[in-house]
């Protein structure tokens, strides 16, 4: 069978890709999508550890991660709507009102 290290390597690579997307993309919605990629990477390693240790707590934790991700999407996209009402477009480089 596949060693648990392979699952963790996959998780690390997915998290790195999500981090690149979050730091690199300009579109605020795609930044939130990259956060979802990172949360999925964490869920993969939680599930792998849950299987390695024969303990359902890892899966419970992953369920809570999914619940918090759903909440994050709701609030984050609500903020995007509020932002785009003031200025159209979804590029983070236009949002410099707090910069001085």
């Amino acid at each position, binding site marked *: *069978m*596949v*060693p*648990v*290290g392979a699952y*963790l*390597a*996959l*998780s*690390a*690579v*997915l998290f*790195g*890709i*999500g*981090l*690149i*997307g*979050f*730091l*690199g*993309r*300009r*579109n605020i*919605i*795609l930044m*939130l*999508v*990259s956060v*979802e*990629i990172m949360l999925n990477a964490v*869920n*993969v390693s939680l*599930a*792998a550890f*849950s*299987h*390695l240790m*024969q303990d*359902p*707590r890892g*899966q*419970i934790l992953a*369920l809570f991660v*999914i619940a*918090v991700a*759903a*909440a994050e*999407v709701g*609030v984050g*996209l*609500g903020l*995007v*709507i*509020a932002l*785009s009402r003031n200025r*159209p477009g*979804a590029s*983070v*480089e236009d949002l410099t009102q707090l910069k001085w």
Partner: protein
Amino acid sequence: MAISAGQLAFYYLAAASVASAILAVTRRNPVHSALWVLALFLHVAGIFLLVGAEFLAAVQVIVYAGAILVFYLFFLMLLDLPSEAAGPRFGAHWPLGAAAGLAFAAVAWYAHGAELAPTPALTAAEDPSAGTLAAVGMVLFTRFALPFEIASLILLAAIVGAVVVARKSES
């Protein structure tokens, strides 16, 4: 050494999820990105099945691929897309972001390689009910009952917060 079906499935799912994640991060059209993320979510659900987390795989498909992704697509349709797709995809600082992501992946890869290389391979569970809905549900509603209720409170707060943030101000 012959490659078993489990290994073959894992390597397919891992390669497909990494490829779809890279495509999701780099596509110019945000809708294409969202659809590649859908492919990523489905492959990650397959990986959950491989590690015996059937309930987690079902939740992944229903909540992530079903609800969250449709929400993202809805918002991508709602906002102005053609002007977004025309501009540059990445900000001016994207090499820094790429360096940070690659460095994190390398460090995490190295760390698990040092610590977890000699651990036994993932084998079939001795307790066949370890990942099933019944086992997860028993733990979730006994030992983790309080965090479960707090999660529902977080979702309620997120619903109210999203409505408050996104509504049109009266003044």
